[in-house]
């Protein structure tokens, strides 16, 4: 079954527009911050937290609008209701998988290139912090959820669906989406890129298995919360 060339052209333009909207700025930020780590704000005030929330909303709203305008329906992108116990079970499974992947990747890298792991930004700085007030904590939690939702919406729900249609291969779609996901985390160091790539594959697998965005979003939120707050 081949894709109609006219539709392929439109989908290509659509993917490019979404990549410009989200991937271009975040990848640019990641690369610049890798070479100039002072640009990373570690101690964020309320205004910065709100700003990050707004920036994420500015990615989510147009992507939802473009999905809706494409006429394919939200269900095609995995934006459907799911029984909460089922979603939670899959999310917990995914989270356990993420922790395992993190442990295995870091152990492997430590044995192969210990200096690389030691010098990694991820281990020198804590990207999360203890909240200063209830409002600060709530905003941070909201940010973790909205941030995870934005990434899952764009990289899994949207890109995997579109790449599968364009390349006719779920494997290519999952690999490409995970690679794009990993690249913009380069500001956290090479170790993180390695870990995040496998996390991306795990999220892709979860999304493809359930055809639903919520399990990977919950797992992603919980993981960010754990490495941010509880580390």
């Amino acid at each position, binding site marked *: 079954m081949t894709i109609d060339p006219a539709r392929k052209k439109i989908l290509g333009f659509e993917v490019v527009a979404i990549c410009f909207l989200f991937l271009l700025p975040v990848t640019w*930020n990641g690369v610049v911050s890798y070479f*100039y780590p002072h640009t990373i704000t570690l101690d964020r005030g309320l*205004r*910065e937290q*709100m700003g990050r929330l707004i*920036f994420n909303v500015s990615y989510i*709203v*147009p992507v939802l*609008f473009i999905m809706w*305008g494409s006429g394919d329906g939200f269900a095609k992108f995995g934006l459907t209701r799911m029984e909460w116990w089922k979603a939670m079970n899959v999310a917990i499974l995914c989270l356990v998988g993420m922790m395992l992947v993190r442990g295995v990747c870091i152990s492997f890298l430590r044995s192969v290139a210990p200096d690389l792991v030691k010098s990694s930004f991820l281990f020198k700085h804590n990207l999360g912090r203890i909240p200063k007030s209830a409002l600060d904590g709530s905003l941070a939690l909201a940010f973790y959820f909205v941030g995870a939702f934005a990434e899952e919406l764009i990289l899994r729900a949207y890109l995997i669906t579109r790449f599968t249609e364009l390349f006719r291969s779920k494997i290519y779609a999952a690999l490409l989406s995970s690679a794009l996901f990993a690249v913009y985390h380069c500001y956290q160091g090479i170790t993180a890129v390695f870990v995040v790539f496998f996390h991306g594959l795990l999220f892709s697998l979860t999304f493809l298995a359930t055809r639903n965005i919520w399990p990977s979003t919950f797992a992603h939120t919980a993981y960010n919360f754990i490495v941010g707050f509880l580390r």
Partner: protein
Amino acid sequence: MDHLLATGQKRILWVEIAVMASFCFLPELWSTYGAGPRVVGDRHLPAILFLASAGVQVLSMFVPAVFIVWGSGDSLTDFGLRSCPFWKGGLASLGGIVCYLAMLSLLAFLYGGLGATPFLAGRHIPPLAYGPIALWFAFRSPFDEFTRRGYLIPRLTTVFGNRLIAMIASSLFSAVFLLYLGAAVAGTGFLVALYLAYSFHATKSIWPGVVAGTLGPMIFYVMLIAR
């Protein structure tokens, strides 16, 4: 015939305007009021990277905006992405440049000198930085003109059914971005935006506004260096 639009169609246009605002205007407005930029823009970055960051930020909004407008089924030429007669465009651009310079002079008069205006007071800009700043305006202008005039005026005209109200609303909206610099700057910004809205209406093209929005501030900075 615009006012004959069905309620459902109007609602869709309002949703589209809200979506455009959510990624073209809201983050920028938030950044302007001190929450930091969406794209890394630290002052200690090398000038070339700072400039490239600005370009990335503009592209990240411009390309999806064009896609959404194109996807609406309306022709992009209806939103000012078209050429206009050279003499007409040139005249409108010239008017825009004069308008910019007149408003800046008015501001200088109000604040008692250019150096005392809110966007320059207490800031030391090394002469070498003027080049990147001027280039920044060249980057920005097409995006600003497309979103604030090219897109907003035809859309607001359709939903309000009145071009004048649309032009005033779009100009007020442009002025809001300058409010953090004080009422005088926002007021003059409003007048410049009103002129640019009129020039868009007269030429049906965003390019005179782009030329004025690039050359006006550039000439201003050249004047600053000469001073």
